[in-house]
């Protein structure tokens, strides 16, 4: 057993000379230190640290979360192709390190808002796989009772899921304004994509956030393609971390969950200290096309996608690190895979068998806190009752 462990360590060392490894006398290490890629900085003297310590407990948690997001997205793909999910479905497999790393860098009391490619963040912010899949299939057990769908899922301190590209920019700045107004030292992570970065309202949000020193972290999730348009064809400047102009920024490897975690801690601390907003660009990649109606290979090659999977897959990167530094065994991680698959399978079963919301409730939730009233249906003799 020890010989096997030592040989694994040695082979680990030759493969990854940059890691320093603590070898404990038991089978697992409690923690290990890893190197992180240095971030490109803009208007910043210092950036996040270039090394970090990962505990075994955290490592297993991040692995499980990323694997859950991956499996959930693949299940959504399958359900969509079987026509149980209709409408829009924008998947984020490949970008798991972003959602998991961001959550690891903030507190549950902080706030997050993002675009329509939201399922990963829905999960990391606290929605169960069940409630997400059931919302996708439009059932009453969905987190929005089946009325929102893929792009409109909400939970405490998570403001969706927004269908209009870029609208979440000012919304996030507004949430940050509320944090500053209440004086609670909370921050708001406001995510948008490389495509949305060209929206005028993002620039408006930048201006007001900087003017009023709002605790808003503007995060550009750059997955290199805005729908079918590569970044070079859409943006005069593809240095999205510099696009805040007078706002400091940093560019982070979005495929490394530890890098994202450390950068998030850094930017959250920056905002919490009252210095105002900051921009963070996460360089990442999506394996699927823009949405389920896009095969994703008309504007990029299959080879490119496969290359990223082979070299930079976020789950593989974490797994290799953990195994090579004795934080976990391959078998243990495989066990987690099996558990995750089961969880997602059970959730999918629920999402397929839970009933749809009843037609009588079609007009509910139009107004909040308002006495019941009637809504005209498709003709004047069809009436729906609307309750808050």
């Amino acid at each position, binding site marked *: 057993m020890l010989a096997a462990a030592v040989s694994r360590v040695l082979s680990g060392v030759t493969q990854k000379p940059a890691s320093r490894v603590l070898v404990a006398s038991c089978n697992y290490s409690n923690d290990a230190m890893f190197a992180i890629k240095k971030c490109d900085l803009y208007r910043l003297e210092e950036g996040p640290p270039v090394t970090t310590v990962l505990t075994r407990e955290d490592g297993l948690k991040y692995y499980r979360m990323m694997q859950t997001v991956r499996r959930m997205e693949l299940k959504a793909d399958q359900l969509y192709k079987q026509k149980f999910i209709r409408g829009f479905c924008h998947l984020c497999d490949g970008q798991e390190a972003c959602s998991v790393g961001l959550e690891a860098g903030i507190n549950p009391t902080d*706030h997050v*808002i993002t675009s329509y490619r939201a399922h990963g963040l829905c999960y990391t912010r606290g929605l169960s796989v069940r409630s997400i899949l059931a919302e996708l299939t439009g059932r009453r057990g*969905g*987190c*929005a*009772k*089946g*009325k*929102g769908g893929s792009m*409109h899922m*909400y*939970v405490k301190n998570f*403001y*969706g899921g*927004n*269908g*209009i590209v870029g*609208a979440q*920019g*000012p*919304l*996030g*700045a*507004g*949430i*940050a*304004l*509320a*944090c500053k*107004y*209440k004086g609670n030292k909370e921050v*708001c992570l406001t995510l948008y994509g490389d495509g949305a970065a060209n929206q*005028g*309202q993002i620039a*408006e*949000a930048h*201006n*007001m956030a900087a*003017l*009023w020193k709002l605790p808003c972290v503007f995060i550009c999730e750059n997955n290199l393609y805005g729908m079918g348009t590569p970044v070079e064809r859409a943006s005069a400047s593809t240095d999205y971390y510099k696009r805040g102009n007078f706002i400091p920024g940093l560019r982070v490897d979005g495929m490394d969950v530890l890098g994202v975690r450390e950068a998030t801690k850094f930017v959250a601390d920056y905002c919490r200290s009252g210095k105002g907003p900051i921009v963070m660009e996460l360089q990442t990649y999506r394996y699927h096309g823009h949405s389920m109606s896009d095969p994703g290979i008309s504007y990029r090659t299959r080879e490119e996608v496969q290359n990223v999977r082979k070299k930079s897959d976020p789950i593989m990167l974490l797994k290799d690190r953990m195994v090579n530094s004795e934080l976990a065994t391959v078998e243990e991680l495989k066990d987690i895979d099996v558990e995750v698959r089961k969880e997602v399978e059970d959730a999918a079963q629920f999402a397929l068998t839970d009933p749809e919301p009843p037609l009588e409730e079609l007009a*509910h*939730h*139009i*107004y*909040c*806190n*308002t006495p019941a*009233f009637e*809504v005209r249906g498709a003709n*004047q003799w069809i009436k729906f009752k609307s309750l*808050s």
Partner: protein
Amino acid sequence: MAAVSGLVRRPLEQVTVREAINQGMDEELERDEKVFLLGEEVAQYDGAYKVSRGLWKKYGDKRIIDTPISEMGFAGIAVGAAMAGLRPICEFMTFNFSMQAIDQVINSAAKTYYMSGGFQSVPIVFRGPNGASAGVAAQHSQCFAAWYGHCPGLKVVSPWNSEDAKGLIKSAIRDNNPVVVLENELMYGVPFEFPSEAQSKDFLIPIGKAKIERQGTHITVVSHSRPVGHCLEAATVLSKEGIECEVINMRTIRPMDIETIEASVMKTNHLITVEGGWPQFGVGAEICARIMEGTYFRETEYSSVYLDTGYRSEAKASFSPRPCIQFPGCSCSSRHWC
């Protein structure tokens, strides 16, 4: 003229619409820490139309916020703040500029409570002057009652006099839904008698309830905002001819109080709608459609009267509603100019 009017003392109980809105906002700002006002020139300039005069001096930078000229941005910021638990009042210098921000009003504010299955409410007020002013030309004269009134999830109110203005702004601020308050610039300076109950800090006018400003038996005249005053003037002229108009002030565009209008039409069997917006797909068109779908449509002849929003004042004058002397016995059932 200006010097003389400065010397004329108004009776104490007269309050202008501007003062009424100011009072309403002041009282709500005082009552609830979470209420704040943002918009262009609302703070240090005292408001582009002086509606927020004195509020910045009283409440300071935190609660009365001057914004840059970024409608889409600051409307979105206001909506986000509402989602996170504050109660913003977002002023548009005129509602014409709200078009640049209309996505935030409709898609981010109005639809969210429904799309979230009742999880996320958006307690926000959008207010500002709406409709035609004096000679401001087409780009600055549009009435948005029909556009905003079209959307479920929004409440839309349109005050006429001071009592309306104060009661409705207070109800709007206390409402947990997105409320659009369509004021009128030409009404800001007009004084009205303020009933004693309107002076209470808890004076509220319910959203969704119209008011019968003048009882009558021969014809129902329905209107909102400034044209309500025109209708009352017309009613006075017609009264001398022996025609008694029942003038209804809608007060709320959405949810519309069709019951009050229908009950009146049942009584009078005649209906005129008067509005500042364009006729096609307008508020009057909706009222007519609802009456037609109601029980008594066969017994009603209907016509609509329109105001033009053209620039030239003489063109406006020729299309302003004048009392229609032909009306008794007027037998046409299609829409016509009066």
